[in-house]
């Protein structure tokens, strides 16, 4: 088996320096670096196969169409969706979630209905539902957390009721890094006749996902968080639901027939893919899925777990480090460590780490309601991926130890 340091070489950017120090990239929750094979797939598409898919009757256009449709089939198998036509390409998870909110939500939610989400949602799986609730006079309800950061079991039982039409929940929180029991929540949602929307942005890159096993009605994620280029995202939806929904965007490529006053829309998936799509991104996504499947999720999970087990005890020894979501009573922690350095603002922490070549995220992580709930204005977050090493953790912790001194504390 190849060592971690060997596949480091697959990622050209990781050889870079930042502020004169070797780059220690610990912001994988925001976006991941790309392996050479993904970069080559993008270049290969634009250098050799670029044409507008579905539009030309010439060989090059057919080739572009094949690349695009192959990505759909690869994605379908990757998350075990029943049919390729249930995979809609978007530009990111945010667009996927908006598509569901605007197309399914506005059509099916009525005044007095309830939408249930969790307090740990990213703004992308929160603001669209707020918009739907406001537009329709529906009620937006929240599932809050236990002391250890996990979703309140009582809230899951009590907030999802006969009035609930939509339950929207992230599979893994981008701040706490805890895996939520989506299969169980799906069962609960279905038992009251609601549908469940799962935000897979922070799960798909790190664990094997099976949308049928979890019985998700909709499932959204971004390619760029799993080694793919930016600008390609995925929405999976059950055929029956997608078929009944109105289109989200309209225009070219999503039509069957257009007259002066009327349009017949195309079948799935074209109905939801208006305009020229990101074929280069789809080529990159295929290469990324190849890379990940070859690597195996078993191995990814074990690398991330090892890094967690290596970092957490060291962090707990530093009396000035505060940790969030790191004391889970279930065995459901992923490679995300959210922390603060006492008496130092996260932005100052990240600036100081930056000068040591260490990239972490600081701020509200697009989860302001969660920050408020945790009574924090902001936090720092280190998030791991398959190419991170114990040496990265060493650099990060060594830099953390300097923070308070730099701040004259």
């Amino acid at each position, binding site marked *: 088996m190849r060592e971690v340091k060997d596949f480091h070489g697959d990622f050209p950017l990781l050889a870079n320096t930042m502020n004169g120090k070797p780059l220690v990239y610990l912001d994988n929750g925001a976006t991941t670096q790309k392996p050479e094979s993904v970069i080559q797939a993008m270049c290969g598409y634009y250098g050799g196969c670029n044409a507008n898919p579905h539009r030309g009757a010439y060989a090059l256009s057919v080739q572009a169409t094949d690349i695009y449709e192959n990505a759909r089939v690869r994605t379908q198998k990757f998350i075990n969706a029943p049919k390729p036509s249930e995979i809609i390409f978007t530009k990111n998870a945010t667009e996927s979630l908006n598509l569901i909110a605007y197309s399914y939500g506005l059509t099916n939610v009525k005044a007095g209905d309830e939408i249930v989400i969790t307090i740990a949602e990213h703004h992308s799986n929160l603001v669209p539902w707020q918009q739907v609730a406001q537009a329709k006079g529906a009620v937006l309800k929240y599932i809050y957390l236990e002391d250890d950061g996990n979703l309140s079991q009582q809230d899951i039982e009590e907030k999802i009721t006969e009035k609930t039409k939509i339950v929207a929940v992230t599979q893994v929180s981008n701040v706490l890094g805890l895996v939520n029991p989506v299969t169980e929540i799906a069962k609960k949602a279905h038992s009251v006749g609601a549908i469940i929307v799962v935000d897979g942005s922070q799960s798909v890159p790190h664990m094997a996902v099976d949308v049928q096993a979890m019985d998700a009605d909709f499932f959204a994620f971004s390619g760029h968080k799993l080694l793919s280029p930016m600008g390609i995202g995925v929405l999976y939806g059950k055929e029956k639901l997608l078929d009944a929904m109105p289109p989200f965007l309209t225009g070219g490529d999503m039509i069957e027939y257009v007259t002066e006053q009327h349009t017949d829309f195309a079948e799935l998936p074209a109905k939801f893919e208006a305009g020229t799509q990101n074929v280069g991104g789809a080529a990159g996504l295929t290469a990324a899925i190849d890379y990940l499947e070859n690597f195996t999720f078993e191995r990814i999970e074990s690398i991330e777990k090892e890094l967690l087990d290596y970092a957490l005890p060291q962090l707990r020894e530093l009396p000035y480090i505060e940790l969030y979501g790191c004391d889970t009573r279930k065995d459901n922690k992923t490679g995300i460590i959210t922390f603060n350095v006492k008496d130092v603002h996260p*932005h100052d922490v990240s*600036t100081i780490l930056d000068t040591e070549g260490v990239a972490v995220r*600081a701020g*509200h992580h697009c989860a302001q309601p969660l920050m408020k709930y945790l009574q924090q204005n902001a936090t720092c977050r280190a998030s791991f991926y398959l190419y991170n090493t114990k040496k990265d953790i060493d650099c990060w912790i060594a830099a953390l130890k300097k923070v308070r001194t*730099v*701040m004259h504390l």
Partner: protein
Amino acid sequence: MNLESIYTELIAEQSRNTANKHHLVAPTVTSQGHNPSCGDEITLELEIADGKIKDASFTGVGCAISQASTSMMIDLIKGESVEKAKHLAELFIGMIKREITDDEALEELDEAIALKNISNMPARVKCAVLSWHTLDSALKEK
């Protein structure tokens, strides 16, 4: 990038200085400033009478740079005329944008000159200028 030139003792101290951090009894203008990207939030309170800033204070949360910059700004503008405060804001923002580099011209900024090196850190420029932009809009509202 040299950390010592950013997080100087003065800036670290000023960031924890609470002398100017409170509410005024009778503010005539309050103005809010906010950096959505990093979460710095300040509310500036001014008591202005006869074209003069009689008193000034702030409340809010944020990084060391934004807090220190706000505190030093208040030291500078308290007791000055509105015109002078506007001039200082122009000077400070000019310094950070590197449009005004002449040390003599910047002398009026006193301690706040310590923030000059922030211009080398694009990611943090917003933190330094937040209070001055907030002041600027407060005085425009007047």
